[in-house]
């Protein structure tokens, strides 16, 4: 599961996702079937809002 509370929509996580599993309009959404839980996205979120479990 990916939980993103209060996403500011900056898109940093989308930019680093090696699998193109994240998309963004106003806030980030994840395509579960593409996510391999590498957790790279967690490391760039300026707010620390992403938690992959």
């Amino acid at each position: 599961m990916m939980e993103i509370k209060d996403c500011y929509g900056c898109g940093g996580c989308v930019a680093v996702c090696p699998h193109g599993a994240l998309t963004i309009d106003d806030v980030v959404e994840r395509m579960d079937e593409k996510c391999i839980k590498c957790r790279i996205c967690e490391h760039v979120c300026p707010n620390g809002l992403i938690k992959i479990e």
Partner: protein
Amino acid sequence: MDEYDVVVVGAGPAGSTAARFAAEKARVLLVDKHREIGSPKRCGEGLTLDAFRDLDIPLDKRFINKKIYGSVVYAPGGGKIEIRYDEPAGYIIERKIFDKFLAAEASRKGVRVLADAYATLNTVNGRIMGVRIRHQGEEREIKAKVVIAADGVESQIARQAGINTALNPRDIDSCFEYEMSDIKIEDPNMIHAYLGNKIAPGGYIWIFPKDDDRANVGVGVCGGERETAKYYLDRFIKSRPDLRGGSILEVNVGCIPVGASLKELVRDNLMVVGDAARQVNPVHAGGVHNAMLAGKLAGTTAAETIDSQDLGILKRYELGWNSSKGKQLERILRIRYFMRKLGDGDMDYLTRVWDGGDLIRVSEGDWGVALKKMAEHPRLLKLLKKFV
């Protein structure tokens, strides 16, 4: 179905500039997903005088908050390097007004601008036909001969065209910024940058004054650090009596692609510009000036293409960028990697041997005399040889 010669996705400085120049010979549509062009802004809002000159932008007081006469860079041990000019060398602008101004300028040149329009690439059998936009709940297809992706760091349009834009996390600066008021700024005519592995690992904290007692106070840290950007900024503010009592007028969050330009800037009839193409200075992470230069080059090239009916001409943008500005950004990227390895003591040492001119030249990729001044520090020179 609407039909244009060129559709530009994203109305930041890169997109609006590309649109403006493309419109000299082409019918252009410029779309932005946000309900308001220029907002939310993700920027420290510093822009050099050169940027205004290069792009022929007036020094309009409607988007200029403060004249800046130079910069002060602080090393963690208390050393600093100052560079001060007699005349303003740059400005702290108001991006929300500036971006809207650029879009309005484009519209005056004949560009059709549409906010609140979320775009996805429209391909048929692998051919880029244009974009689909969702505007206020309504889906529309826009046919275009050329698509320009200026959709920022996340760059979904380029990805949809099959260009691999995924960034290594160490090539991203994770940023957090407050606009603060009622603070004490030591010298509000200067921009201030604080370095240090504990203060802002892999990046720096900035104070960019918008008024005598109001500033953008922000941090960029290298992606992949232990703590979040917000953590480093809040800790810095708490440690500073001149800042900690201030009010917060705005909270800005963003990520900057600092890994030097994307190599593939053109694929078929798609061009990529600005943050989407990572056209950012890897050392100071400024991107607006480069974005507008790239936008101008891409827009002009797109216009020529439409004029001559030869899509092959589009590649001239890629060749032109990669052989000039792109090369420079590559050099600066190596300096970023060198700087990532500096200890706090090394930074203090450099503030003792370098002056402001050295620092500016190094951040533009030119080592020159700065190198000679490091001669007494063989370890740093050895480290440098690994990267430069």
